[in-house]
């Protein structure tokens, strides 16, 4: 029987990998490695297939691959990926650093490096890495999204807002980005802009029962400006779309401000502020979709 060449085995393994047949891919790669144990392409495929199959030897193959071919940026990135998959953050960071040194425009690795820097308490380094990523690829969504988050963590709200606006410009339907713009305006006390942003959020977020969250943002902007009458109109409107009674206390508070205390004690301002903050958090959580 004619012997299958390494190149044929690689092509076959690659086709199987791309087709989602990871077991077949791994088998073909290992078959090739029996004859050519130093073939970095086969080692990488064996490692990647093992990773998909959740087998413990993934990093072993990928480490061998970078040893064989230390100048291959993709191989380092794949190793970093596998190490992060296993939760080995420090080792992963080293691998991504190698990948970026070899290929400075590797934005995916830069984003990972930024998060790893943040995970080890170096948020400033994370921000600078993300800025670097965006210089390389302006408009990279993963980098922009991460930058918004990192600026927020660092308390750099102006910069976070600027990044969030860019994100909105690129993805006008991205509700989370719209939430960021609205919330950041609120946090920066730009109440007119915040009110507009929450108003706009009403149109962007067409999920049933979500309209109330946008109303709450608009009410919050009015409360901060002490525009009670306007807050009252919004609160009355909000109750119309509020299926779960989230607005009742807020309305009671605003009514007390406009008309004076009634026979039922109104909630304190701090309680209303807490409720509005909780509403924002809930809305954000509802849009932190997990795409597995």
């Amino acid at each position, binding site marked *: 029987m004619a012997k299958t060449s390494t190149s044929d085995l690689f092509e076959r393994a690659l086709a199987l990998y791309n087709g989602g047949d990871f077991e077949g891919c791994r088998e073909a790669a290992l078959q090739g490695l029996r004859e050519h144990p130093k073939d970095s392409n086969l080692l990488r495929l064996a490692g990647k297939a093992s990773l998909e199959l959740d087998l413990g030897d993934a990093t072993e193959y990928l480490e061998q691959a970078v040893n064989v071919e230390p100048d291959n940026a993709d191989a380092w990135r794949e190793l970093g990926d596998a190490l992060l998959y296993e*939760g080995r953050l420090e080792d992963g960071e080293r691998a991504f650093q190698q990948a970026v040194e070899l290929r400075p425009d590797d934005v995916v690795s830069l984003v990972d490096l930024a998060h790893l820097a943040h995970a080890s308490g170096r948020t400033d380094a994370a921000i600078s890495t993300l800025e670097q990523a965006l210089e390389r690829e302006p408009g990279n969504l993963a980098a922009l999204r991460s930058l918004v988050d990192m600026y927020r963590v660092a308390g750099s709200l102006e910069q976070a807002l600027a990044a969030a606006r860019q994100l909105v410009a690129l993805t006008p339907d991205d509700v989370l980005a719209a939430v960021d713009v609205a919330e950041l305006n609120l946090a920066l006390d730009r109440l007119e802009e915040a009110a507009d942003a929450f108003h706009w959020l009403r149109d962007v977020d067409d999920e049933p029962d979500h309209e109330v969250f946008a109303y709450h943002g608009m009410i919050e902007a009015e409360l901060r400006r002490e525009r009670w009458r306007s807050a009252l109109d919004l609160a009355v409107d909000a109750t119309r779309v509020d299926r779960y009674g989230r607005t009742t206390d807020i309305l009671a508070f605003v009514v007390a401000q406009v008309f004076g205390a009634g026979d039922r004690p109104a909630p304190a301002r701090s309680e209303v502020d807490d409720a509005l903050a909780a509403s924002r958090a809930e809305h954000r959580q509802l849009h932190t979709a997990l795409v597995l």
Partner: protein
Amino acid sequence: MTTPKAAAEQAQWTRCPSCEAFVYHKRLKRNLGVCPECNHHFRLPIRERLAQLLDEGSFDDLSQQIQPVDPLGFADSKPYAQRLEEAQRKTGNSEGALYGTATIGGNPLVIAAMDFAFIGGSMGSGVGEAITRAAELALERREPLLVISASGGARMQEGCVSLMQLAKTSQAVARLHEEGLLYISLLTDPTYGGVSASFAMLGDLLVSEPGSYIGFAGPKVIEQTIRQKLPEGFQTAGFLLDHGQLDLVEPRETLRVSLRKILELHATSGGGVDGLPKTEGAAPITDPEQLPTRDPWEIVQLARHTDRPNALEYISHVFDDFQQLYGDRLFDEDAAIVGGLAKLGDLTVMVVGHQKGHTTQEMMERNFGMPNPEGYRKGLRLMRYAAKFGLPIVTLVDTPGAYPGLGAEERGQSIAIAESIMEMSRFRVPIVVIVTGEGGSGGALALAVGDRVLMMENSYYSVISPEGCSTILFKDAAQAPRAAAALRMVAPDLLRLKIMDAIIPEPEGGAHENPLVAAQNLKAAIVSCLRELVGVTPEELVARRYDRFRMFGTPDVQPVLPRLEITND
């Protein structure tokens, strides 16, 4: 233009909404969507949920035919028909629930799963149709039904037609109950309103994941109605478990394994006599003369010994694959009674028992083995479950008595005990009762109406504690040893009185001296009883059980013991 979904797919890191840590997306995926930092269970897309639970490639989706209806021609800020189209585009599904056939660990079942991404998991006619068809298919195929819920409630846009889905789905699962088919309901985050108040809470088994929010009314509505702050964790799965409303809260990591185990326990429940294991323990004793003579008060002390094996320890030695189930489905989870499904050889049984502890802390957690009404209602619920599926029942009795407390009385302690006694007398499955320690009065009898009633050699069974009897009848608490003897509460006398069918020997010095041997003897006794009972027709079982308890105190039938001479010393 890049869609939000595309943006999300490009995200390499996800921020945990609970601990706010950034988690590497692939690591999160590897961890089944559970945050590795804080164990927060992310909501899962429906397809991912099915991929995690079902055998690969086993799901045969039958829901393509289901199309939503717009019975009211409803429109709010946009027409309902348009909302439906948008939801269909977004999710790739025609409605908010899928149904079909599948396997878990090779066990066939019918499955229906709700998609929270489809108009907030609301239940309209399409969802109701999918759940109902799934239940009807399970009935037709005689297979278990698994329903996975995730819902904000009924779909307002369909008006009263959506409300009717509660009735439509509930009546469909009622037929499964009538036909003795297993229905497992997995309630995921969030399950509220019309879904929680219908099919989702009607499973034989109610299972959820940690941190899932489940309830009828939303917490804000409740807070604003009662004008009180709600407790931490209100309406989480843990809260519901503590309040007796769920059978299990299972981490995602072990959820599939648990579901598989439950399905297997049911798939092989008809093992019959041949499925019973061989045992090595000593045979139970039926001749009172063969029992050692011991001072009853000494036996009372042994029965109460803090090192004496308790129900969970016996269960771990005697049975395999114990799947503990919790809650009375009404008010509370009472840790003084434990129970669940287990294997005895190939035979699946339901085990229920009083549970004490060895340390003071354990004892307090278990209320010293003194159940509240919730405990008895849990026990009864589990026995009803066994009766529904034709599973033999084994009870392990070890209680000083039912808890004498204010709350217990308010919640109907007498009713709970009475109903348990009555229903046990009529269950159409074999019931084997073992008094393993203290058999304290009605609190013990509530788990002790069986076809065979046995006791461990150093246990006691009595209408009242010796201390109680001593105080009431002898007017002196110090006369408890005398009362213990007078009450004839230990093995030889109870055997002669026919209260007991047999006595299980204990190792020298008592069960606590060698719990393994005690458990082997217990196992031998249970197996020997079930050999006699499994295979007897339900009618015959119930008739014989009736006769067994009918005999007590009947003149000329009830054995009478010779008078005992007891001195005050």
